[in-house]
């Protein structure tokens, strides 16, 4: 999943704490070995190799995560898309130096993209890619799912704690450290400044932003979050540039996927899409002519500063 997981837990017993650490990281390892497209033996790699040849049965956990990903795609105008891997490569966000690809490279990559080319058959629990060359990358949702599973390990062990995956997905048990866990949302342009705060309880938080991987060319920020529906539409560059989005959701999996989707949709379209996801909130940070601007949808606490 290419990220660093940090676990904070509250236990008076060091031996138990150590056992919990091991159990949580074993679980994250298990999910990495299931969902990583970088591991040849993972289930996702197996599907990427063979699901273009015909329907393949997979286990319910993998099937359900794929189904959840496609559900988010369906409800977010297709901007969240787990088949975007070839485009990421074309833009150089998967390793080599990122840059604007030439039209031919972009067109070739586009041929291999499109979540509607994934066919899931719940009756037989099969996955089929309707287009050869299609590849699934669950990086935008599996990290959150891993946080959910890790929380499950803590809950079944009866231990309170908080898990932070690369500072972009955070979740805590209900009573972590005996009170609600407050998370500050920083100004993406000045990490020392807090834009607002949110309290984690039964909810998970995820942030997506341009600061993770991006480059600037001709005054425009290009970031690793790619909208597959706006391909080649360079002319439709947004007037206001989204810098960061934070989503609160009932699960880390949903928060993870929706933070990408809300980033790409922006505030206006995002609010409409978000209405389909109960108990989810979003907080956008833009750069505009007047500096940082913020917008929110169903944000639980009306405490943001610097926001217009």
């Amino acid at each position, binding site marked *: 999943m290419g990220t660093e997981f940090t676990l904070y837990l509250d236990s008076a017993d060091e031996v138990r704490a*150590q056992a919990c650490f091991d159990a949580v990281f074993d679980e994250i390892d298990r999910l990495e070995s299931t969902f990583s497209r970088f591991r040849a033996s993972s*289930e996702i790699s*197996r599907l990427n190799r*063979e699901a273009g040849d015909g329907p393949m049965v*997979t286990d319910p956990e993998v099937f359900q995560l794929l189904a959840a990903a496609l559900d988010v795609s369906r409800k977010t105008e297709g901007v969240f898309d787990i088949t975007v891997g070839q485009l990421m490569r074309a833009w150089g966000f998967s390793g080599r130096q990122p840059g604007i690809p030439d039209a031919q490279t972009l067109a070739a990559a586009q041929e291999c993209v499109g979540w509607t080319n994934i066919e899931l058959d719940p009756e037989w629990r099969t996955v089929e890619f309707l287009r050869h060359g299609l590849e699934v990358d669950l990086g935008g949702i599996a990290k959150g799912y891993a946080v959910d599973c890790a929380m499950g390990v803590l809950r*079944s062990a009866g231990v309170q704690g908080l898990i932070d995956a690369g500072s972009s997905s955070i979740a805590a048990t209900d009573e972590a450290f005996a009170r609600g866990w407050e998370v500050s949302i920083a100004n993406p342009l000045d990490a020392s400044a807090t834009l607002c705060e949110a309290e984690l309880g039964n909810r998970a938080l995820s942030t997506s932003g341009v600061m993770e991987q991006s480059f600037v060319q001709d005054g425009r920020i290009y970031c690793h979050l790619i909208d597959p529906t706006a391909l080649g539409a360079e002319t439709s560059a947004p007037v206001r540039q989204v810098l960061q989005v934070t989503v609160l959701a009932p699960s880390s999996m949903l928060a993870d996927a929706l933070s990408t989707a809300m980033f790409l949709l922006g505030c206006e379209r995002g609010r409409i899409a978000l209405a389909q996801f109960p108990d989810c909130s979003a907080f956008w940070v833009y750069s505009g002519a007047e500096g940082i601007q913020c917008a929110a949808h169903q944000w639980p606490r009306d405490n943001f500063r610097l926001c217009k």
Partner: protein
Amino acid sequence: METKTELMDRRDFIGLAAAGLGALSLGMRGCNSPRAVAPSDWVHVGVIGVGSRGQHMMRMLLRVPGVQITGLCDIYEPRIAEGRRVTGEQTTAYSDYRKMLEARDIDAVLVATPLGLHAEHVIAALDSGRAVYGEKSMGRTLQDCNRIRDEVRRTGKIYQVGLQFMYAPWYREALRRIGEGRIGQVTQMFSCWHRNNNWRRPVPPDGGLQLERLLNWRLYRELSGGLLAELGSHQINFANTVFNAMPESAMASGGVDYWKDGREIDDNVHAILRYPGGQTLEASYITTNRLDGAQERVFGTGGSVVLTHTEATYYEEPWYPNSAIPPEMKIEHKLITGPTYSAEQPYHGKGDSPSKGSADDVDLRACQGFIDCIRNHRRPLADENAGWSEGVAVALCNRALEEGRKITLSEFLGSAAS
């Protein structure tokens, strides 16, 4: 000697089974849909022991077309909910495995219970007429292994032991190359499985000592064979296959020297197994440093092969006149000489890591093999003979560890008869 004959048979069988496995994986490509599986070929699996290993193997089984998990049995109730999350269904739950074995909708049984219970559960499942996938080690004691082997033979049912690395293409390729003499005469093996953790599972706070001993059964003598069984079994099995024999003697040393938390099982174990051909396996299991991880190093007069959980890497020795490898095969390491060069320096250069073949997960391959054996009435590669020689060798080492002395196989086998 019966043992020897069985192993010879097993080695011969490697070639046959490899052909079967190849056909299997070729046959699978492009027709991985359960829709294509005839109703009569569906395999319904009941699971005894729905802990972390059981759940993992359930996921693997559910990736094989035409497999359904139809029964979950565990005495620890939370495992049932976890197991149902894995199956994605309200799978029928049992707290008594005998009740599950009475059910009509079960064709095969996965036994993933604590080691000390393998014999009871595997034998009952075989006796009920089911094919059995039994986790390794085969049994905790010599008697357990004997009973399981005898029951497999009596019932004629399919039994596959959970030695999944036997299904790893890079292990199979290594066995082929070793068999062809590509690394000369193999005289020594070194294996290790080094971790840096306390090997504990978290126990809910209100669980009490009983639940601690159930969830952390690996740490207590009653049900566990310790590091040798839980980790060493794969490696000892590999040595048995490379040397085509059982160890003729074993000595071992270990202790609870770091994790002094009430456990009864040693937190570090080191064993030396001698084989009839004059070869040695030196095996090391520690829980306080992971630099070396899990690996097997096979040393031949003409070269070496290092196997890990993902690949095999080959190294050639410099050729010398009395080498077992023919001169035409000689390839020397590129040595960088300098003021500090010494022939005794360890080799730090790159080895040759050929493609490992299928990239699929080895547990998945083992499950595919098991289901294929059921459907096509084939004998598993990891059959009762493989399981018996592995299980008995592990039990021999554990006896040597307990008694702190060298024990021969013949003495050990004789002790069961007396």
